[in-house]
């Protein structure tokens, strides 16, 4: 079974240094135990609450999982755990996309995602909020270098509209496109999932 790779850009809150993105790997795990994912490998790195939020959203989106969900549970771990991850709530979107890809709800092998999800009763309408500060996260993304195949990068609007966001971060986004990283702006979780459905890598 293939491996799902999820990248989550990191920002330095003091805005002075850049760090490489988090690399989350979803691999086939145990077959005989409960199919629910376990988060023990993420909790040690401060990603526990983000993982729980992602699991809750996953259950809202798919309350009646397919047979594939009961076959194996994913083994999820961080390939490059940072020592100073202080705020990790924005990792929930990436973990959710990784879970959906692992259970074949999304046709992805790798994805990058940034943004905080505000929970709502209608999960697809849950708004995404840009990270703070976004410039630092875009610099973090650049450290991945040239990608092949193209890497979809889900990020919320950093401004009132996609056009304004494109203008404000024109230079950084152009650099990412040169590196074969495709920024896909989304205002809600539903838009983010649609963008992922239209992308194949």
């Amino acid at each position, binding site marked *: 079974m293939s491996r799902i790779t999820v990248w*989550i*850009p*990191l*920002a*330095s*809150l*003091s805005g*002075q*240094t850049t*760090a490489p993105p*988090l690399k989350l790997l979803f691999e086939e795990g145990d077959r005989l135990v409960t199919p629910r994912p376990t988060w023990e490998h993420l909790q040690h790195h*401060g990603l526990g*609450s*983000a993982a729980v939020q992602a699991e809750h959203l996953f259950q809202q989106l798919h309350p009646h999982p397919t047979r594939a969900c009961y076959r194996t549970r994913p083994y999820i771990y961080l390939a490059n755990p*940072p*020592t*100073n*991850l*202080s*705020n*990790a*709530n*924005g*990792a929930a*979107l*990436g973990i959710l996309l990784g879970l959906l890809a692992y259970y074949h709800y999304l046709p992805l092998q790798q994805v990058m995602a*940034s*943004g*905080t999800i505000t929970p709502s009763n209608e999960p697809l309408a849950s708004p995404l*909020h*840009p*990270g*703070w500060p976004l410039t630092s*996260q875009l610099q973090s993304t650049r450290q991945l270098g040239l990608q092949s195949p193209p890497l979809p990068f889900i990020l919320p609007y950093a401004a009132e509209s996609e056009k304004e966001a494109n203008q404000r971060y024109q230079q950084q986004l152009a650099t990412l496109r040169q590196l074969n990283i495709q920024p896909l702006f989304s205002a809600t979780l539903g838009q983010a999932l649609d963008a992922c459905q239209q992308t194949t890598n």
Partner: protein
Amino acid sequence: MTDPTNRPNQQHLWHLAERYLEQLYLPAEISEDRLPLSPRKTHETLPEWLQRLRNRKLVPQTEFIRLAAAAGGTTIPLPDPGTTLNSRDGRFRLTLSATADQQIEVTLQAMGFSSFDFANRNMGLVIPDQPDRLIGEVLLNEQGRGTGYIVDNELHRRALLKPTIVWIQEEEA
């Protein structure tokens, strides 16, 4: 009862105290019992205490880099609950958490051989790039661990985006 501040020698002391308090860049709403000052020692008079505060030197030690995965929000965030930060040089660990009474609990732990070096020493947190602006103190115990409290306001939260540690070296007058 007469006002003690009317006496000339007491007035001088009060002027002296006010001058030192002004140098601390404190927001006006903070009451005096929550000042980020090291407490008065037993049998220490007010002039001796003020003189001791004046003679101390802040020696920069290290800083902490805080990384965030899209830490959005309107307020300046503290680290997620249960998150421990490691200093750049690996000598210290820091935990920050908000308390119910509008304060931030700061727990500082010196690691490895540094716990011997900094045992029973008074450490401080300063505003980044301004090593003379102290925002809080932490007295480490014999194991190199200590807890202190600072007022939870925007200035301090902004400073804690890059916590910077100093050693408060007290020089003899």
